[in-house]
């Protein structure tokens, strides 16, 4: 090999991953790429497209509920809308979004690795994901109609309804499989591919949060997988498992379902917490308060979060022992989340705060997630839950946690990392305007839900009594404001990717994690040399030198 070609081939690996021309050209260079960064972008495009579909369905649901009955669609269409809205938002958007997009893109870089542990498996996960997602979309248009059971698929209704259940359940199963593969990929990456010197407690907190999340994914996803598979088997072969006419116990289905789907809430929220733990210290320009407490609380949430599933079933007539145990554990699981919220707030203390868009979203996350978490605590109390469960209160609660939490975490991540990913900066002024519209719209939309719930409005209701209308009208108006904010935000980000101001400096925001020490956008191989890590991720030693100077 001559020196010249050697130099060329090295040069090829130093080119940024967006311009890289590998074995496959053009679109195939993306669809067949095993580069974690390109797969991250693939996920970003697909997840955000599904998000758009989910938002559209949610928008239509709100429009329908403007009047007590029959505004734009009939009850069957409405039932399908809220079911598919739930399935898309939960299984296809918020569960994968942060790990798959930002985990894929930044986890290896943050750990100082060139790729994830199993790059080809990573690509396979994406294909499984889009197959599952496409099946859900197809179910909307196929004859027979989309699933109309609610995203919880409760037996016996899910074995009785005539809609395309098998198709939908199979889709969720496939997506679950994709989720498991991503989880085991990340776990192996974190265990085996940290750069030399990066001990467990020198890992960025985002990596910690992904570690905890991946464990939940690997452990509990198979349980819902097998449960949904059994519903398919039950529908196709009339095998007696859950169906009460065949002797089954419908509550066992609920137990099995929530054994996954409650921890899924933590799969949803913990990565977003990781994002916040990155953003808050960077924009305060100081070290994070209580690194170890935050790291351990991620694991604590993962462990305890897997043990509280039956608090979704307080009204189902469980044994008193179960009610006691699950209510107690539910209250205790609130503690690690509370610790995180306090630590983030304390991180602002004595910082040098720049209120850039990512921090705005992060602070909104803390506020909205606190409301979500606190409304969750309210429902942990048994007698209050018996009143509030299955009402709009719980719909409000889930949207504050999932949208206010993970949604705003996602927006923070987008505004924090997109400039790094594409080397282009968005318009910060527009981003701030979009933030305020989104934030205000969000609260106008979802806060009335909490009031409606307290007033006894049952969820999943196409029709409602006239006394509830005023709150529904407020919420629907809120949905218009929220969608406007989202449109401005995403158009702003999209424009920035195409023709935003070029950014080439490595450290855009003054972060200290490894992704800020590589080129913008990153090169194909991430690092020319695997870095040697000596310090923790948020040391901000500069502060301490300056402090010493002052003392002198």
């Amino acid at each position, binding site marked *: 090999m001559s020196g010249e070609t050697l130099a060329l081939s090295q040069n090829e690996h130093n080119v940024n991953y967006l311009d890289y021309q590998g074995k496959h050209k053009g679109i195939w260079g993306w669809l067949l790429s095993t580069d974690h960064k390109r797969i991250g972008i693939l996920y970003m495009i697909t997840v955000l497209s599904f998000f758009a579909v989910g938002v559209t369905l949610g928008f239509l649901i709100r429009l329908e509920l403007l009047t007590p009955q029959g505004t734009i669609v009939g009850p069957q269409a409405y039932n399908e809308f809220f079911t598919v809205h739930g399935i898309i938002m939960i299984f296809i958007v918020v569960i994968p979004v942060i790990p798959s997009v930002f985990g894929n893109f930044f986890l290896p870089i943050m750990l100082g690795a060139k790729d994830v542990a199993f790059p080809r498996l990573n690509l396979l996960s994406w294909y499984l994901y889009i197959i599952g997602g496409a099946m859900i979309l197809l179910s909307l248009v196929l004859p027979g109609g989309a699933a109309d059971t609610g995203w919880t698929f409760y037996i016996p209704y899910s074995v009785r309804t005539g809609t395309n259940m098998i198709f939908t359940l199979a889709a969720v199963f496939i997506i679950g499989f994709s989720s*498991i593969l991503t989880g085991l990929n990340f776990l192996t990456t974190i265990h085996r591919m940290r750069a030399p010197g990066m001990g467990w407690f020198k890992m960025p907190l985002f990596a910690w949060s992904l570690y905890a999340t991946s464990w939940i994914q690997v452990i509990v996803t198979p349980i819902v997988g097998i449960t949904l598979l059994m519903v398919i088997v039950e529908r196709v072969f009339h095998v007696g498992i859950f169906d009460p006419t065949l002797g089954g116990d419908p509550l066992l289905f609920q137990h099995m379902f929530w054994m996954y789907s409650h921890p899924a809430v933590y799969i949803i929220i913990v990565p977003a917490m990781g994002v916040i733990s990155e953003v808050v210290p960077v924009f305060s320009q100081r070290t994070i308060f209580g690194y170890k407490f935050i790291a351990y609380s991620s694991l604590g949430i993962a462990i305890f979060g897997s043990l509280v599933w039956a608090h979704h079933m307080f009204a189902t007539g469980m044994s008193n022992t179960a009610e006691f145990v699950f209510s107690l554990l539910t209250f205790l699981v609130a503690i690690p989340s509370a610790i995180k919220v306090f630590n983030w707030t304390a991180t602002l203390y004595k910082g040098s705060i720049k209120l850039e868009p990512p921090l705005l979203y992060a602070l909104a996350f803390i506020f909205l997630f606190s409301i979500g978490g606190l409304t969750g605590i309210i429902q942990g109390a048994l007698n209050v839950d018996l009143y509030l469960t299955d009402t709009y209160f719980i719909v409000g609660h889930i949207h504050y946690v999932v949208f206010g939490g993970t949604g705003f975490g996602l927006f923070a991540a987008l505004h924090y990392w997109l400039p790094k990913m594409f080397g282009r900066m968005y318009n910060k002024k527009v981003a701030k305007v979009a933030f305020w519209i989104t934030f205000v719209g969000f609260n106008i939309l979802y806060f009335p839900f909490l009031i409606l719930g307290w007033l006894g409005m049952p969820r999943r209701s196409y029709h409602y009594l006239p006394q509830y209308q005023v709150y529904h009208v407020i919420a629907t108006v809120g949905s218009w404001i929220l969608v406007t904010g989202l449109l401005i935000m995403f158009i702003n980000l999209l424009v920035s990717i195409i023709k935003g101001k070029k950014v080439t400096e490595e450290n855009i925001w003054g972060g200290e994690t490894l992704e800020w020490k590589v080129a913008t956008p990153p090169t194909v191989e991430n690092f020319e040399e695997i870095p040697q890590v000596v310090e923790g991720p948020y040391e901000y030693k500069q502060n301490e030198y300056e402090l010493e100077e002052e003392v002198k």
Partner: protein
Amino acid sequence: MSSAESTQAAVIAEPHIEEHAHRDDVRSRMGMWLFLFSELLLFGGLFLMYSVYRYMHQTDFSIASKEMNTFLGTLNTVILLTSSLTMALAINAMQRGKKGLSIFLQIFTILCGAAFMVNKFIEWSHEFAKGNYPGSAILASKPKGQILYFGLYYSMVGLHGIHVLVGMTIIAFMLVFTIRGKITPDNYVKLEAAGLYWHLVDIIWIFLFPLFYLIT
């Protein structure tokens, strides 16, 4: 010929070692083990359902299990355990560079899997002949606990059977890789992973056997 090969080997020895160091077998096995946990918990979910229903319908489960052919069940256990042994030996033989022996043992493992499936087929067709199949009027007229027993039996044993078939396919691929020389005495992690999968299938059967065939 052989001396020429060895000198060539000496020349490329250094990059070869580098590549070997770059390859992380522990990483591959860790991925495989994590995958096995998912599999374990997939069945774990079924075992949880089983335990609840057995607890609720103890006598019905016992009566229904009397319909099972204990001899075939025991035979299948022995077959699967033996195939696990041959799979472990196949990997060991490969480590020691005995390619021929390894190929033979892999074929033997696949044949054991096939024998297991044949037995399953005999068992199931027997049950079907008796009318103990999902959706049949005979089964539907039985007590609820027995319907559930057969529901769980077909689901769990069926899912396990699918795993046996998948395992056989994987080992068949390994066989091709071994013959083509893609699996070698110093790069056999694929074969190890296939072995791990096969042993997991064995472990699941170790639990299924007493839980369905030997209820007193």
